[in-house]
């Protein structure tokens, strides 16, 4: 018990000394993967007065909007927010492209085929809308269809970032 307390205090000290990963990436906790999360508005193409989207540098979005079109036909896709986040090995990780719709991810590590096993919670404001056990494979996104808004629907996209499919 005493030994456990010492370890806990020591671990706490290490983590407290670690600044944000952007400031000093070397001190960031171990990461199992990087995940790109995006909040996309699948809008009616005839809708005027569309919300302002963000200008993305992610090359993934052009490909993702084409793929979204296969699942949600006759829609136009506006990227409202995006967040690329390390998925930490021993911490919960939050992917927050928007304060309204976001995800909490707990990594369960990699499987033999190098896919990321995870537990995902899909949040809408203060509510957990859905929980899922999932397997993320490079190049294959998850589309989570959320609430309807205006003349369309909000979609959370989750994709392994910076990994090429096998």
């Amino acid at each position, binding site marked *: 018990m005493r030994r456990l307390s010492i370890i806990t205090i020591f671990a706490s000290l290490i*983590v407290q000394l670690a*600044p*944000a*990963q*952007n400031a000093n990436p070397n*001190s*960031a*906790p171990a990461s199992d993967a990087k995940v790109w999360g995006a*909040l996309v508005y699948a809008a009616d193409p005839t809708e005027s007065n569309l*919300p*302002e989207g963000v200008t993305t*540098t992610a090359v993934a979005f052009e490909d993702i909007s084409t*793929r*979204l079109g*296969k*699942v949600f036909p006759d829609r136009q896709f506006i990227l*409202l*927010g*995006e*967040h*690329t*986040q*390390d998925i*930490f090995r021993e*911490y*919960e*990780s*939050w992917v*927050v*492209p*928007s*304060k*309204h*719709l976001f995800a*909490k991810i707990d990594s369960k590590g990699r499987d*033999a085929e190098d*896919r990321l096993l995870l537990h995902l919670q*899909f949040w809408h404001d*203060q*509510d*957990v*809308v*859905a*929980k*899922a*056990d*999932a*397997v*993320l*494979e490079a*190049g*294959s*996104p*998850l*589309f*989570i269809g*959320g*609430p*309807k808004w205006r003349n369309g629907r*909000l979609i959370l996209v989750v994709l392994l970032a910076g990994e090429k499919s096998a």
Partner: protein
Amino acid sequence: MNPQDEERITQWIDGTLSDTDVQDLLETHPELHEAKSQSESLGKLLRKELDSGEQIPYPDFFNHQLKKRIEEEDAESPSAAADQKDALAESMFPRFMFFKKMAPLAALAVIGLFIALLFFNVPVGGSKIVSTYTPNPALEAKIFYSDEAGATVLLIEGLADIPAQQNITGVQAVGYAPDADASHLTLYSTQNKPILALTVDRKAQPRIRKLSF
């Protein structure tokens, strides 16, 4: 079939019968060729499908459905003639009759696995959702895999619409590192400026506020 032959069949199945004896046995009972071929095919099929490493989604439900199907099969009464034929065959080839009895069950297991994979739309490759749960019973989660999109889709049905007048905005964030207890997180912009603060309270509820625009 004499007891000696039965013993030789047992040794043959166990792989301990010499080649000469196997040849002699097959010459005496040529019908064993077909039985052997069937059992080998069944073994290969089972190994291929059941050792594929594929996770069965909702295993309890799968087992329940499999058990139900087996019970339904058992409930169907076979004809008396078939019973007599089986009884005769069993007295002659007890080990092979075991395989014959197992064949429908094994086939059911394989078919059941395919049905489960199709029913839950679990893709063979690509990302997948193994299981879902919606805490609010009024909500329903639908999962399917789109081959065209190469994506797994989780649709949450039953959510209240967000009022049109509410403004939904997003951010461009690139990451954070958790603090000691992961309760305070600061998300950074691509310009390395803090843009969102996320606090997780004692009830594991996240509170998010914007720091800058």
